[in-house]
């Protein structure tokens, strides 16, 4: 079995689920869904020894070979970390959701979407071909959209799903364009090949646009500022979904993308500042706003955004090492990347656990509002313990894994501020300050989650159900995540040596692997980082106690000026504006559309005439005009002008007949007997038909138009006439080759007919004639059906049925 097949397994399983759901009867379908990630996790874990030994595994299936698009699965440290997270957390979430969702829910849909998402996510992390990566990327957006709107009868769910889809898909498109630019530069869709040749293309004019567009994709997916607004709204999804997608996996896709493309774009100042700057600001901004929330899930959503910003910032800081290339001094900056990878894992564990805990609280007492919760500690001791582990880890306290990654983050921030590139000597000092302030807020909301929920007065009258411990099955998954959180604190190097170090080799390909990575120590002595943590605890506690005195500061950031409001306003305005725009020209009046058509005709054809200089023509070579022709032309001219001023419809019809018969005379003069014959008969028939329908037509009315409008019509018709005349004259001047009519002169020898016209119609070009006959048939059928199939009285309209 190859990795390619492993990626496809969830899709296959998703395809079976609806059928299986019917067969299983009373067994919860989630048990089947649980087997998939569990099996995949064990399978992927079997790669760990190989990866730890520095190997990579690659397997290619051809998909569209003519376009160089192959379904290539590439397993290295980075993709394996994410693969294990996806399947591991996926298995736990499946288990959790078995107890969380009641059997009355539409479970087959839930697990179908979930498996779809899981497969797409595995595809994203294991794909080496950027086009395939993009395909899976969009699949994650779509399946996430489906999952957010799982309770589609709720308006807020639908809105949240729409918002997340719009934002992530626009980012996805930007990323696609960036990918295509990369292909244009390097001529390859394979990430590994792009990395190996990109150094020759850094001056390419597409290099910066490609970087910006790919970053846009990563930022929208990972909910970075200012695209973070979709994530809090995505909390309308069922809690297992929030735990899985919006904390552990999908939001990490953008992070993964940044990590994956660090060897491509890292080492550029813009990349460093964008990733670090946006990450840091997101870290601060979201942490600051998390404190304001009263819904626990919203609080966790903001905290997710904030933590993602922190990881992003660390990847940005780490990319500085690529600027120098390999040297013993620059290795120290790679530690930021190591910390980022470490925190990536840590965040998935504790945030998954926290979401599950909140889900339990919501499930058992019926509310997530912190103002109604309190004093649950004595009712739900196990839940409380996990919540405490998760929150303290998030706040960065020992003995939990968050402490280690936070310390490493501070180390990286302190190191980078002493660097002299990228004008860091002026701005570098800001980085550790922002990091520290954001961490204070992180500490603050982490404490709020624990203390406001589990301590304080128990307010039974505000709860829908009395609090009690949830069923054991629901606790398994969060307990396991909680154990991982603690386990990672005590044995961090197990993860570091086996997975993180190989992942580093992928991000810094030019560095010798032995120099990459760090040993993680739970106790690193009394240094600046530790004192920063002390500061966080002290200031954080102080702020927590005095929360009600400074809460007013949030008034400074009213909802009206948020990006959320901007998004809604923009969406609303776009709808209104486009409706107004469409209404302004789609008037429903046929005459207006004709004006548009003729206007563009004048613009394009007239413009082309003037632009190409085709107007110059000479009439010297033309045949002389005989008196007969003058007379007929004069008659036609008078008739045509008179139609415009005709007072009755009958006059207009007859004048039109004059025009038709005059043309017949012209055919006679120009020696076209067949045409003349047909023209006479047809003109008669059409005039008769006009007269027949005359009876049914309304009164001939003068059109009461404004003068200006009339002038416009006059102008347009004059211009169209002039252009046609000019074209006719100019075309005559530009004969490019001999006429082919001499071929038809042999019609008697070739077709046995002396009448050339008839021979052409019936023999040389008989296909056209045949289809003209079909046109006649259609016209006849049309008239027949229009008249015969009329609606009788009391009949039902066909289109109303």
């Amino acid at each position: 079995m190859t990795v390619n097949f492993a990626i496809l397994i969830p899709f296959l399983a998703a395809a079976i689920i609806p059928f299986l759901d019917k067969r299983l009867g009373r067994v919860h379908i989630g048990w089947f869904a649980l087997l998939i990630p569990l099996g995949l996790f064990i399978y992927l874990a079997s790669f760990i020894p190989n990866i730890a030994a520095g190997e990579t595994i690659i397997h290619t299936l051809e998909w569209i070979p003519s376009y160089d698009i192959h379904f290539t699965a590439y397993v290295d440290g980075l993709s394996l970390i994410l693969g294990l997270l996806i399947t591991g957390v996926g298995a736990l979430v499946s288990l959790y959701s078995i107890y969380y969702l009641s059997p009355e829910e539409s479970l087959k849909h839930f697990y179908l979407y979930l498996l779809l998402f899981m497969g797409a996510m595995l595809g994203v992390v294991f794909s080496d071909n950027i086009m395939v990566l993009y395909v899976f990327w969009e699949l994650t957006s779509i399946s996430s959209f489906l999952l957010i709107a799982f309770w589609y009868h709720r308006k807020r769910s639908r809105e949240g799903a729409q918002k997340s889809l719009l934002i992530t898909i626009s980012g996805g498109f930007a990323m696609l364009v960036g990918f295509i630019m990369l292909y244009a530069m390097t001529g390859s869709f394979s990430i590994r090949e792009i990395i190996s040749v990109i150094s020759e293309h850094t001056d390419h004019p597409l290099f910066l646009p490609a970087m910006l567009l790919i970053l846009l994709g990563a930022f929208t997916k990972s909910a970075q500022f200012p695209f973070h607004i979709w994530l809090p709204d995505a909390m309308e999804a069922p809690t297992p979904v929030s735990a899985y997608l919006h904390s552990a996996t999908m939001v990490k896709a953008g992070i993964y993308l940044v990590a994956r493309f660090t060897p491509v774009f890292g080492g550029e100042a813009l990349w460093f500042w964008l990733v670090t700057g946006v990450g840091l600001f997101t870290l601060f901004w979201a942490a600051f706003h998390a404190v304001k929330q009263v819904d626990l899930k919203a609080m966790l959503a903001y905290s997710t955004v904030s933590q993602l910003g922190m990881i992003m910032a660390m990847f940005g800081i780490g990319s500085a090492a690529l600027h120098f290339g390999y040297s013993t001094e620059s290795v120290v900056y790679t530690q930021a990347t190591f910390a980022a990878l470490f925190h990536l894992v840590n965040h998935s564990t504790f945030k998954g656990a926290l979401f599950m805990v909140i889900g339990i609280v919501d499930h058992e007492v019926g509310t997530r509002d912190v103002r109604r919760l309190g004093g649950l500690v004595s009712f739900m001791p196990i839940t409380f313990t996990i919540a405490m582990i998760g929150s303290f880890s998030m706040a960065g306290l020992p003995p939990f894994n968050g402490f280690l990654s936070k310390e490493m983050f501070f180390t990286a921030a302190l190191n980078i501020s002493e660097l002299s590139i990228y004008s860091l000597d002026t701005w570098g000092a800001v980085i550790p300050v922002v990091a520290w302030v954001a961490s204070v807020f992180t500490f603050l909301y982490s404490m709020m989650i624990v203390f406001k929920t589990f301590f304080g007065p128990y307010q039974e009258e505000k709860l829908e159900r009395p609090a009690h411990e949830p069923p054991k099955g629901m606790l398994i998954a969060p307990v396991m995540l909680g154990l991982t959180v603690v386990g990672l604190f005590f044995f961090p190097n197990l993860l570091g040596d086996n997975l993180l170090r190989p992942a580093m080799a992928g991000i810094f390909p030019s560095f010798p692997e032995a120099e990459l990575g760090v040993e993680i120590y739970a106790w690193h002595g009394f240094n600046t980082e530790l004192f920063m943590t002390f500061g966080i605890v002290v200031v954080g506690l102080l702020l927590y106690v005095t929360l009600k005195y400074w809460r007013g500061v949030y008034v400074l950031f009213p909802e009206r000026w948020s990006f959320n409001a901007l998004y809604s306003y923009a969406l609303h305005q776009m709808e209104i504006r486009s409706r107004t725009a469409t209404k302004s020209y789609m008037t429903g009046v046929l005459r207006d559309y004709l004006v548009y058509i003729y206007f563009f005709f004048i613009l394009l054809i007239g413009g082309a005439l003037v632009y190409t200089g085709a107007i110059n023509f000479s009439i010297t070579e033309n045949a002389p005009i005989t008196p007969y022709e003058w007379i007929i032309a004069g008659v036609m001219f008078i008739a045509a002008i008179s139609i415009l001023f005709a007072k009755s419809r009958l006059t207009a019809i007859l004048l039109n007949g004059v025009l038709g018969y005059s043309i017949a005379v012209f055919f006679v003069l120009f020696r076209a007997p067949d045409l003349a014959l047909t023209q006479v008969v047809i003109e008669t028939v059409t005039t008769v038909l006009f007269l027949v329908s005359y009876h049914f037509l309304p009164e001939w009315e003068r059109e009461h138009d404004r003068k200006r409008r009339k002038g416009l019509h006059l102008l347009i018709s004059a211009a169209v006439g002039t252009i046609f005349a000019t074209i006719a004259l100019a075309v005559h001047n530009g004969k490019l080759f001999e006429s082919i009519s001499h071929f038809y002169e042999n019609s008697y020898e070739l077709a046995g007919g002396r009448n050339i016209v008839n021979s052409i119609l019936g023999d040389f070009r008989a296909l056209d004639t045949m289809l003209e006959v079909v046109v006649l048939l259609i016209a006849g059928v049309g008239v027949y059906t229009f008249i015969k199939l009329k609606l009788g009285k009391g009949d039902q309209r066909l289109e109303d049925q």
Partner: protein
Amino acid sequence: MYKTNDLILRTTTSLIAFMMLGFAIYLLIAGHNAPGGGFVGGLLTAGAVLLMYMAYGTEAVEKMIPINFTTLVPIGLAVAVGTGVGSFIFNQPFLSHTFGYFTFPIFGEIELATAMLFDVGVYLTVVGVVMTIILTIANDR
């Protein structure tokens, strides 16, 4: 409602209509070598029949010419397409026409061309379509 006396019209019609029909047939047959053809021939035939309709009224003409003109349309189309498909039998491309000279007992040597058959198809279709259109409009209540 009073009854009109259209004796002159009817008398002339019986003459003119047959002349027109004859001319129409002439146009159809002569089309290969002289001005004319299936299209004009068809239109003129339709004109002649319409003249009869105008002079004698719908019921009388329907008794005289018991043809449902609408059925002429598919027949004509089938003939036209048939001449095209027929060339496949002789391993020729679609709509390849041929001609030849044959001697007949009374008429002497006559040129026969498959393009004529095609023209007949066009003729029948045109007659059918024009008659269908005008009769449906005329009979509409």
